[in-house]
């Protein structure tokens, strides 16, 4: 029991709230379970719904160091796992040559060259080797090619990394691992099987209001309530891109800056461009909000 991070689901939720992350029941349950089963969480959902923030907040809440691997197309082993420091290795060889009086043991040198001293750890290996508690965030995994996912599989299932020259490195402690995806492509079955799956959607109205209250200094309860309700209303319209939580927050901050206490339809329409990114969406929403109540 001692090595569990959380007592129960409710305490996960409470502790996250203390670091200003408002989790729902699903989020709290899966984080709790991930710790118990020692399994990574694959967090999927629309952009701006708090996927990355979840990993950061869990790190903060557990007093862990956050190690982040930002994914992009073309990410490879040398950037994700480790790389040998060729420059340093070459210098060492040259130094050896210069001082060679016939006594150099080249086998020994080979071993030296492929030792810790010349190893450059990248985020994945760093997380495995960490002595202090860490949270590993593999952000936007859907951006790498499906073949690159293979690099992760060993870590995700066994918490270890095999380096041909050094052997297998096992984790000194099991880190909490988060992978996020905006779902731009189907992830491999192999990857999904290794993870717990958590879909984070746009929050329910009440939770969104709480997020606004927590994250926007100086906002009144009344305005936060209106903001959350209008955003809910707008999300019900069929749009190219619905407003995300970060856009809700931007909008709420703007309203506070403008000194608005209570939004009317005109003010809502005039500031819609903060909430929505496409002109067609803005027009559509403006029209909807202007319409007489059904």
């Amino acid at each position, binding site marked *: 029991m001692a090595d569990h991070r959380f007592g129960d689901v409710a305490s996960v939720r409470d502790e996250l709230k203390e670091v200003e992350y408002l989790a729902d029941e*699903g989020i709290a*349950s899966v984080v709790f379970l991930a710790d118990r*089963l020692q399994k990574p969480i694959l967090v999927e959902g629309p952009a701006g719904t708090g996927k990355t923030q979840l990993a950061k907040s869990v790190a903060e809440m557990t007093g862990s160091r956050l190690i982040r691997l930002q994914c992009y197309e073309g990410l490879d082993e040398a950037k994700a796992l480790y790389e040998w420091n060729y420059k340093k290795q070459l210098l060492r060889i040259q130094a050896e040559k210069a001082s060679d009086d016939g006594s150099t043991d080249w086998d020994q040198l080979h071993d030296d060259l492929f030792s810790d001293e010349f190893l450059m750890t990248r985020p994945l290996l760093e997380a495995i080797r960490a002595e202090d508690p860490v949270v590993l965030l593999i952000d936007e995994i859907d951006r790498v090619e499906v073949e690159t996912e293979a690099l992760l599989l060993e870590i995700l299932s066994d918490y270890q990394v095999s380096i041909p020259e050094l052997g297998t490195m096992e984790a000194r402690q099991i880190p909490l691992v988060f992978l996020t995806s905006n*779902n731009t492509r189907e992830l491999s079955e192999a990857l999904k*099987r290794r*993870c717990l799956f958590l879909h984070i959607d746009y929050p329910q109205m009440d939770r969104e209001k709480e997020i606004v209250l927590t994250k926007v200094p100086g906002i009144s309860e009344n305005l936060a309530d209106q903001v959350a309700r209008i955003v809910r*209303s707008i999300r019900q319209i069929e749009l*190219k891109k619905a407003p995300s939580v970060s856009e809700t927050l931007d909008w709420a901050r703007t309203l506070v800056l403008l000194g608005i206490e209570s939004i009317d339809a005109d003010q809502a329409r005039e500031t819609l461009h903060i909430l929505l990114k496409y002109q067609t969406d803005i027009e559509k929403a403006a029209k909807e909000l202007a319409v007489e*109540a059904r």
Partner: protein
Amino acid sequence: MLDLMSGFIVELRNAGLPVSLTENLDAMEAVKHIPIEDRSAFKYALGATLVKNASHWRAFETVFEVYFSMRGPQYRLPDDDQLSEDELERWMQQQMEGMRDRSGGAGDDMSPEELAEMLYRALMRGDEAMTRAMARAAVGKYAGMEPGRPVGGTYYLYRTLRNLDLDSLLEKLMDETEAQAPAPLTDLERRLEREEFESRIDHLKQEIEAEIRRRLVADRGVEAMAKTLRKPLPEDVDFMHASREEMVAIRKAIQPLTRKLAARLARKRRNKRRGPLDFRSTVRASLSYGGVPADPRFRYPRPHKPELIVVADISGSVAAFARFTLHLVYALQGQFSKVRSFVFIDGIDEVTHMFRGQEDITKAVHRVNTEADVVWVDGHSDYGHAFEVFWDNWSREINPKSTVIFLGDARNNYHSTNSWVLKEAAKKARHVFWLNPEPRSYWDTGDSVISEYGTYCDGVFECRNLRQLESFVDHLA
């Protein structure tokens, strides 16, 4: 517990969810860490181990409700972990009887007026616990459920809702809110208030459905209920037989699907971007390196974007299929160098312009249905006539870069087929494909002439659901 879990997982597989062995084991492990009484956490824990695709969540929830609906703080669970299904069922039966007494009693105690009044107050205050209690009482009072009656849940739902008359309740809630407001409500405020009440009423309906389901499970047993409720996943719903609710689910599934497809197609093209080695240019460049080919040059690949010509039957039963296909094709416009579209019943009309400059594809598709001029004589499918007119008016649009796609069931009402149009089209086009939304086993039965058309196509594909449509489009670009 073990039995219950394995029955549950078998049912998930029956419902089409791809649960692997690892996932099965993870779920077994997960339930050791979360008490079953904490129903919602329990559900999310199971979901996290068993459902790896968000569009499968609904199917999962349904099965979960059936298997675990009787478990929860309000239905004290016997403490035996090794409960067999038999025992479980017996126990559910008891609970059921208890429940009938309890809620039946409560319902009998309350007059319809009292129930309506309490429900009204629960909704006005947004009191979830009270709403739930009222949902139960309403089912007890109005659904008229009797053990053993072979009636579906929708019937009980209908009876309950009819008695509650939620439409007038909503108006009453709105009137009261208006009356209580310190100042007259603005349109925006009114809209927001209404949406809040609508969301509470939705919630009430869900509670009512859940209660009915719980009672049906207790009456008929878990497995029978699970089987009755089994529904295809959105990607497997048959276009030709989709209910309205399923149509909505398909429409929702199309969006992420197009995003995925677009990314995949763009990636494919990018990977192909580097053409073959251009020897001449490489050698020329090598001269500046003393003949060493240090700077290899590659040929630019040919632009690979195909030109699409879509010809779609939009009559009756295949209309939905045509709509979804057009929707998908236009959502992916960027992946093609040009898209032109034609729709027909017995007449044919070009609808390309309805999509042009129209960012809202749903709207464009709607216009196709309402504005296209596709009726020639009587509005019964006549492929032969439609194809002939197509050929006379638009055949010069087909060129070696175009891919022509015909959509339809090829049910021609025994008119002449004019399949020469396809033959000629195949000569001019890069590819000619046909997508048929009917099950393969129906092809060429009755007035279907799919094989005759198919002879001239590079491929004829069964395309009954999103899954098949996706795989076709994936190969296309």
